[in-house]
């Protein structure tokens, strides 16, 4: 499945206060990371609607990174916990679509953690590279997760 020349495209959602600033700091500190991630700034990781993730994946992204402030350090007090909850639920939904959990990664990075943010990106790029292109939604659902046969209600039972 993996292709040595494959360069994944990853969309990264970052919050205005911590993770976007971590990305800024990685730049200011000239910390290098792979060019596969394209960032979108939102005010808070709590703003990230799961449909944004699905939209990105369906538009051709091979993975989505969600980055917020560390738990307890959210600019909006606790909204990153909401991002955490949504990420958990989204992972379950994505698994049913046959999308590997490593493709949608949640991480925390404070405005001081440029190096950590760069490292997270490098790790994620490696993982998604290993998984290969997503090519969703054209990719068929893997048989293992699809129901063996679709139950049909018999007329008698009804």
């Amino acid at each position, binding site marked *: 499945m993996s292709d040595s020349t494959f360069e994944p495209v990853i*969309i990264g959602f970052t919050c205005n206060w911590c993770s976007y600033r971590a990305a800024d700091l990685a730049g200011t500190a*000239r910390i290098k990371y792979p*060019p596969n991630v394209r960032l*979108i700034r*939102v005010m808070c990781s709590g*703003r990230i609607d799961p449909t944004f993730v699905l939209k990105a994946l369906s538009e051709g992204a091979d993975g989505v990174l969600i980055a917020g402030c560390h738990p*307890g350090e959210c600019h909006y007090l606790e909204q990153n916990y*909401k991002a955490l909850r*949504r990420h958990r639920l989204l992972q379950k939904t994505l698994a049913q679509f046959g999308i590997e959990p490593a493709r949608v990664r949640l991480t925390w990075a404070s405005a001081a953690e440029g190096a950590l943010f760069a490292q997270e990106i490098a790790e994620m790029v490696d993982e998604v590279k290993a998984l290969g292109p997503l090519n969703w939604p054209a990719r068929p659902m893997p048989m293992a997760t699809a129901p063996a046969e679709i139950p049909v209600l018999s007329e008698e039972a009804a």
Partner: protein
Amino acid sequence: MSDQQKPERIGVYVCHCGTNIAGVVDVEAVAHFAAEDLKDRGVVLARDYTFMCSVAGQELIEQDIHEQQLTRVVVAACSPHLHEKTFRGVCERSGMNPYLSEMASIREHVAWVHTDKVAATAKAKAIVSGTVERVLKNDPLEAIRVPIDAQTLVVGGGIAGIQAALEVAEAGYEVILVEREASLGGHMAQFDKTFPTLDCAACILTPKMAAAGSHPKIHLFTWSEVEKVEGFVGNYTVTVKKKPRYVDEDVCTGCGICVEKCPILVVDDKFEAGIGYRKAIYWPFAQAVPNLPVLDTETCTYYIGGKGGCRACEKFCPTVPNSILFDQKEERVTLRVGNIVLATGWDLFDARRIPQYGYGRLANVFTSLELERMCNAAGPTGGKVVMRDGKSAPQRVAIVHCVGSRDRNYNRHCSAICCMQSLKTAHLVKERTGAEVYNFYIDIRTPGKEYDEFYQRVLDDGIHFVRGKVAEITDIPFDPAEASRNGAGTLYVQVEDTLAGMQRRIPVDMVVLSAGLEPRRDSAEVGKTFGIACSSNGWFIEKHAKMDPIATMTEGVFIAGCAAGPKDIPASVSQGSAAAARVLNYIRQGELALEPVRASVLAEQCSGCRLCNGLCPFNAISFDAARKVTEINAALCQGCGTCVAACPAGAIQGTGFSNEQLFAQIEGLLRDFSRAPEVV
């Protein structure tokens, strides 16, 4: 939304930033890409220029807005955190709504972090494409302008709060000063001398307390707490709970006869740190501001004795009508304020948490605060340093630094003041008792003005310093020989002397534990009341630790003094003044412009499911039961967008970060690279 009738005209500007961007990204190719490939998206011109933020660069945009009738602007340069304001200003000057411009970060997020020029250029193109799509969906917005109420709330009547209150009041504005205890003064009122100058704390504090207490613009609420805070910057409504003193504030003259006549003596574990007594009706201390006693219902016989109690205070009160009100009730006062300064201070680390140091178990182990009271001439011992028996002077005294600080078992932070406090205590004990004084320290930290000079002075006093963390303090001798050598009642300090490289066991008569500063035990709840966050260890979080240590993430709520972390007196006073300066700045502006990033509900699309209702930590969301729709108070909304993401009906609009903007940006970012699914 873009107007269907009139096509949008977008200008794209790609900055070289000298070689900062142009050294890695092929800026000409990016500009060419925007001009050609994004032509169908409304881009009418794209330029690259050495420094877009320069005057010439800004004029270039201004000129194009006028001559080319641009309707939207994209600047691909540095992070919006650096120059978004600059380019919005350019648009505004040119008669364009500033919110119709966007920045694409191709320096911090591309040129500075990538080395592969081809990949970097491709990424820069994608970012520009995403930003063009986003800017097309931008709405013209207006900054939200809110009026600022000039009345200010200061919470905490310690030195930081007093300073803030005085500064605002001196400038001519009304101040509400709320203090939880019966008097202003805070911890500083408990101290004896202040380092490094050794001037007495009361001598420098009480004039400030008196000034705050008598200032016509300062309205004191002592023995009171802020219960509820509603509203937003400039327009807060606060509810203050006034606890009953059982003394009529309007009548009492503070003569003190009631205190004198009260027959009940109680251990004062608050102001006297447990080593002195007070009456059941009492002042915390002689210079209390306001000069009004408080009746303690837990010890007064009127409340606990049955049979109506002794009522001595009432009998001897000389005022007409009588000042003692046994059935006074708590009151609630609602006030409107524009800004809030939180100077809520700190709590002392409870030394009992370190059992091997024996505090609370071994009589002659004291805390630094107990020593402060003991050294104080107005304290329980009249300034004499004595052992727990109240009379004998110690011959040998150990001072243990970093108790509960810089210790991964308790607090990792350095309490900042205890080195100097310990040195001061060492000096005072030596001066007053002539005892041999040992300091046990990990590191000596004396970075303030004249602080290290004071350390040198204490070294010259002949005080001993042992570098090592004390392992144990015990009253059990090693063997009978040690017992007979040192006498009964000796405490042994077991420590590894890390400079001498040996274990030492030093016999002393008295131990002083320099207990650290901790966040207030209720800081999390207080933070919640005021809508500000605490770090994981409980200190309030500043807007920026270095560049904005006074402001918080909540507009109009400022922090001063130890509420945000341990500080000495000069730093607390400076912060009090700084907070006042910030408040005065807002008051003088009269009104404040806020970013129009807000959520709003489209009532006709809201199904009234209330899913969003519990999501807002700022209480901006409420449910209109009559109309069965949710409403968002734009003034309370902070613009995080969590409710926007949660609304299953898409009825909540996130201004500035709308679904349309974000979907468009995603499409734009992936436009070049999307591998369209094969058509089967």
